[in-house]
């Protein structure tokens, strides 16, 4: 008795293969992480009263909006990447996942441009509680984007060899990576209005 069951096929009573359950559980914990950070935002903001700046007066709304679109599109290309594998179209998978990675890098580029303009205007994390929570929330989110780029980069490059040996399992991996990617995207959909617009 040596092999672990349900690595590819779903178990009947749970309807899931192991990795898919794993990623859902991981995302549940991520919800708690960002939930705590958002709660901190709420508590600090209600405590600050009138002293809290309007996001738009400090941050660049257009850049934030642009980045939202970038991430939304990258989520779509991620789905197409998975769908391509389901249709056994490996070349299209390659270009879709490649596009996802490029869009993520574009997001990071815009983000670091935003950061550096803030630094040029002498706005640092220690300037105010608003800047502190801004840098913390977007920083933790950016780390998640970087994590996604690393995983997707691996699955696009060396990891994609699995397509030859075990296509079903590889397709599952893309599905799991996609679930993570959509979550990171979703976090931004909350972050953007809360920080830039409210």
């Amino acid at each position, binding site marked *: *008795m040596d092999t672990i069951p349900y690595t590819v096929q779903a178990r009947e009573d749970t309807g899931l293969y192991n990795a898919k359950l794993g990623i859902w559980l991981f995302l549940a914990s991520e919800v708690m992480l960002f939930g705590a950070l958002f709660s901190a935002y709420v508590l600090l903001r209600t405590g600050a009263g009138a002293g809290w700046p309007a996001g738009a007066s400090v941050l660049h709304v257009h850049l934030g909006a642009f980045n939202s679109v970038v991430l939304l599109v990258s989520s779509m290309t991620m789905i197409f990447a998975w769908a391509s594998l389901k249709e056994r179209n490996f070349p299209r998978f390659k270009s879709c996942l490649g596009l996802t990675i490029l869009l993520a890098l574009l997001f990071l580029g815009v983000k670091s441009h935003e950061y550096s303009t803030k630094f040029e205007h002498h706005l640092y994390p220690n300037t105010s509680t608003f800047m502190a929570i801004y840098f913390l929330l977007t920083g933790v989110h950016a780390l998640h984007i970087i994590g996604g780029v690393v995983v997707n980069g691996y699955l696009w490059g060396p990891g994609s060899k699995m397509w030859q040996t075990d296509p079903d399992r590889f397709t599952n991996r893309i599905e799991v990576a996609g679930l993570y990617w959509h979550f990171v995207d979703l976090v931004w959909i909350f972050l953007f209005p809360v920080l830039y617009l409210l």
Partner: protein
Amino acid sequence: MIARAQHHPHELSFWRKYIFSTDHKIIGLQYGITALCFLLLGFCLMLLMRWQLGYPGEPIPGVGKFLGENNAPGGVMLPEFYNELGAMHGTIMVFLGVVPLLVGAFGNYLVPLQIGAPDMAFPKLNMASYWVFLLGGVTMLVSFFLPGGAASSGWTSYPPLSDIATVGQTFWLIGMVFIITSSLLGSVNFIATILQLRAPGLTFLRLPFFVWTQLVTAFLLLLAFPPLEAAGLMQLMDRVAGTSFFLPSGLVISGEPLKVSGGGSVLLWQHLFWFLAHPEVYVLIAPAMGIVSEIIANNIRKPLWGYKSMVYSVIFLGFMSFIVWAHHMYLTGMGTKISAFFQTTTMIISIPSVIILTCLFISLWGGSIRFNTAMLFALAFLPMFGIGGLTGLPLGLSASDIHLHDTYYVIGHFHYVVAPGTIFAIFAGIYYWFPKITGRKMNEMLGHIHFWPSLFFMNCVFMPMFALGLAGVSRRLYDGGQQYAHAQAVLPLNKMITVCAFFLALFQLPFMINLVWSMIKGARVKSDNPWEATTLEWATPTPPPHGNFAQAPKVYRGPYEYSVPGALKDFSPQNEA
């Protein structure tokens, strides 16, 4: 002791087999050995504290001169060093000792066996979880040698003190991030394993109670730790990037206004911390209940009374533990309405624990009990945990908590839960599963010498703490309350506690000797199921080889079918039709 286990076709190298192993049993043992070392370290730190509390200002005999001039000039402990010891005793005991033992060691070793699985669902993650845990532990250890020493703001790390503490606190935070990451990897793995890898026929209400407690615990770790991670990141930013998440405006330190932007909230930390730390106490106790239940069921030779209500209770306990956290904060001025809510939930959460304990007590009724060492520890767990739990009720009501908050009464209360409670359950578990792991039994004589004095001295250590607390002696005082008039009458108790703590230490020696000696020389077991138990871990070869079961097991019955009327034997294993 593990060497005989390898009847494995493709031989792995020593490193892959014992060091970077992905086998849940090896990882469980790695966790177990590491965590036992941390437990001993936390215990030794406590002995140093106890000396200072019993004999304040007197040089520590023997080791005093090795502690360094910065910590104990002339062997006399400085207050700062006491604070370091206190914070690190708490941190090490909770995060590096007890939880890794209960979950990392017992959980890892037993859960796949008890559900009839070949391994955990994600073996590589399992290995990563151990190594990240070790990294966190090493970070904590290294912090003792930093300028200013280790973290000294208590295991709770309350700001603003922790925000402005020495660099040891930064290491504490980084260490915690590692530990949280490790526990995240572990908890995902446990839940996935229990839900996905159960053997055919092993339905949820046929799971051993131990597995249920591990499942609930994994959910607590999964969902309660991330808020502490968030809080840890914020405190880290406060310390290294100069932010003011937890620093209110207008803070003055040693007469100097602190140069920060201000606007932060110290209560924010407390809320996020206790959102983890209350569920954490159920992480410290639920698996212990699981261990004790297995051992009691086996040694009374009849089914557990009310198995189903125990299962529903532990699930309910898990849910409730997320909405009681602010009972640690009654005295922060958060308001009576909020207090009323948390008092209510706190009273409600005591119910499931009482149900579980009651079921175990009633189970004893009419059993033909086998009093081996494992069973003695398991039986002692019941009243000890009972004392710990019942003394918690006055702390959960805000009126009585005004008097008791932050006194030695609190220290007595939670130590009854974790020391004679959880630690006894851990001992029980070690005596009980040792034969499965090594193929040998531990020595009963040494076991008795370990058990009876431990029970006696545990109570001598912790019972007087209630008296100290009721007299109003605060916790975290480096001289045990000498400067306070109201403490004078009870101060002699401090000496007594200290003497008893050293006796308690002395009577752990038979255990250590027993553990090592029995591995090499203990009486060999004659069967794979020496206790004549019913659950699946005893259906494996001894010790279980890689892949665990000779053939994939099938399950036909519930976990505790002992003395079934009409059966040939007084135990009916789950895998026998």
